């Protein structure tokens, strides 16, 4: 079989043993997610001014990262998968920030 002649690391990427995530890890993540949900609701009722949306997004992002790393197994996958996830969020950020650059600077008026 030609898989042993594989200098470009195609057939067995990074020779990763297939890692099985245990129910215990999932349970910890589950509780963490519920906790952060409770936290974000509680934080919404406290007046933190401009920080309210910031904290809400930070909590939501933390939850998302936890889901991605553990429920979606990305922590245990190849670099390619990790880069792919990163590329997706990078492109999303490009869409948001560069479009926003127009709307923010409109208020700055003409030259």
């Amino acid at each position, binding site marked *: *079989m*030609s*898989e*042993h*002649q594989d200098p470009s690391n*195609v*057939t*067995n*990427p990074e*020779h990763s043993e*297939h890692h*099985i*995530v*245990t*129910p215990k890890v*999932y*349970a910890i*993540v*589950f509780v963490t*997610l*519920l906790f952060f*949900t409770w936290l*974000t*609701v509680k934080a*919404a*009722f*406290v*007046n*933190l001014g401009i920080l*309210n*949306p910031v904290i*809400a*997004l930070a*909590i*939501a992002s933390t*939850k*998302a990262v936890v*889901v*991605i790393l*553990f*429920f*979606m197994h990305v922590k245990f*996958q*190849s670099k*390619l*998968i990790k880069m*792919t*996830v990163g*590329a*997706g*969020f990078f*492109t*999303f950020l490009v*869409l*948001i920030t560069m*479009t*926003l650059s127009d*709307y923010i600077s409109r208020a700055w008026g003409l030259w």
Partner: protein
Amino acid sequence: MDNTIVATNPSTTEAAVAEEHAHISLPQHRHHFETEEQQREAGTFGMWLFLLTEIMFFGGMFFAYLLYRNWYYDAFVVGSNQLSIPLGGTNTAVLITSGFFMALAVWAAEVRKRALLMLFLVLTTVFGFVFLGIKYVEYHEKWELHHIPGAHFDVSQFVNPKAYGLKEEPIAPDMAQKVQIYFSLYFAMTGMHALHMIIGVGILFWLMWRAQRGDFTSGYVAPIENFALYWHFVDIVWLFLFPLLYLINRHPM
């Protein structure tokens, strides 16, 4: 021979190299893949690429939300306060639980426990239905109150909340009109999300049928694994929708 490439390193093709992994050839092994791992990793990679398209798909709506929340903050506050935190919060917990069970389903498939796999798939589906049910209740309430964007959108509740017995501050009529944009985005985003859930539930039924036959508990876990990726992604979208739509300025003045 015209069709063969002369292998310039013939020794390695025939060499007996120690097998570190047992390579059982599953019936689902596709001929164009060399190994099981290659097929599995390709499947996961392909599903992630599809999820990237979903990120960009929802991304457009998230940008619209970002823009209009900034332009019409007061209207967004009023609109957000129309939503029920108990229902939304419960739904968030429901979806997280559903995702938890889906993750356990993947584990059950990997350790080849068919009964557990079935149980977890069923639980995932049940919680999925609960989510959709609560969503329906919320949508129905909006229908009753004439808060669905379009010709019948009614802003009187926002302009004169006292008349409805509400403790809200009234907002100016032109800003009240902008609440329609809030609800446009609310229905577009949660509606698109719900559509993805419905499709997911449909696929779950198919997976349950096949899991029942033992298709996924003899080493071939890719459909369960890759569907789980989709399901978790839909969950993540909701994890962002909940605070952005339900929790705008909930603190007392």
